[in-house]
């Protein structure tokens, strides 16, 4: 399979994603410049972390208007797999490809730390190699990661299993002490209704080797690979 990694002005983790996919996993990945209109036949599009367009106005608000986003939206509508990490998650919410929005962390601080996540739904293309309830250890690094959504939509997301990852403590319990940014229901990652678009605040591409402090991020990328195989 071939991966496509979108580069916006201000993207930071595009090359980390490329390193994880190509160097660590031995996959094939292309960098896609934001002005491009073609995705070049890739099977999964990654919107990486960073500060696209300086995060001016709101995180992800301006990236939504990049020429390549038209293609990404079309690709998603056709059932193509789209993964948004951190700023990519914010872009997907701003584009309307995912429900909800990401606002300033409850504690106002930028948070850079390793967190525990619980796999809530292991039947998605993004988590298929995980088990339900499995704990993943991934880093987060964001100032605007508090997931919010209307009450009615939140109930629908929970009911349909669209909450894929939740912040928990090392024993797998969710709660205010294990919720780094104040996200509603400790939500760390959500899928769209069709389960082909996934956004998460934690960074799987920063957890792909023991040297980086863990390899749990590979489970996510390998799940996608397995799903498409």
């Amino acid at each position, binding site marked *: 399979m071939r991966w496509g990694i979108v580069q916006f002005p201000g993207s930071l983790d595009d090359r980390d994603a490329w390193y994880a996919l190509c160097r660590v996993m031995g996959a094939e990945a292309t960098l896609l410049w934001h002005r491009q209109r073609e995705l070049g036949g890739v099977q999964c599009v990654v919107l990486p972390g960073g500060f696209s367009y300086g995060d001016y106005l709101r995180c992800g608000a301006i990236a939504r208007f990049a020429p390549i986003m038209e293609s990404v939206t079309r690709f998603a509508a056709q059932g193509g797999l789209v993964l948004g990490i951190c700023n990519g998650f914010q872009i997907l919410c*701003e584009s309307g490809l995912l429900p909800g*929005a990401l*606002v300033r962390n409850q504690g*106002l601080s930028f948070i850079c730390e390793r967190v525990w996540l619980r796999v809530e739904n292991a039947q998605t293309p993004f988590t298929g190699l995980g088990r339900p309830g499995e704990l993943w250890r991934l880093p987060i690094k964001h100032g605007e990661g*508090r997931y*919010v*959504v209307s009450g009615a939509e939140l109930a629908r997301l929970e009911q349909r299993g669209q909450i894929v990852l939740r912040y928990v403590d090392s024993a797998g319990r969710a709660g205010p002490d294990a919720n780094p940014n*104040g996200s509603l229901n400790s939500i760390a990652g959500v899928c769209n209704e069709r389960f082909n678009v996934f956004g998460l605040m934690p960074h799987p591409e920063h957890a792909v080797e023991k040297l980086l402090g863990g390899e749990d991020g590979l489970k996510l990328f390998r799940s996608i690979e397995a799903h498409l195989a």
Partner: protein
Amino acid sequence: MLVKVFITPKEEILDPAGRAVAQALRSLGLEQVESVKVGKYLVLRLEVASPAQALQAAAKACEQLLANPLTEDYRYEVEPE
């Protein structure tokens, strides 16, 4: 024509920045401060023939880019230069 746009976090969205500023104002001795909302203020200069056209442009700008309807409220004023 000038369009002045005011954007604030929605009532139901926790505004930690507003809360921190409110606390600081109380520390300043302004104990009558009940709450603060921290938002954005934008001034758009438009080349249009009428205030109606400016209002139309302002509505589109707010709905489609300047504010996120899930998390923010907005209002705007049109003012001749």
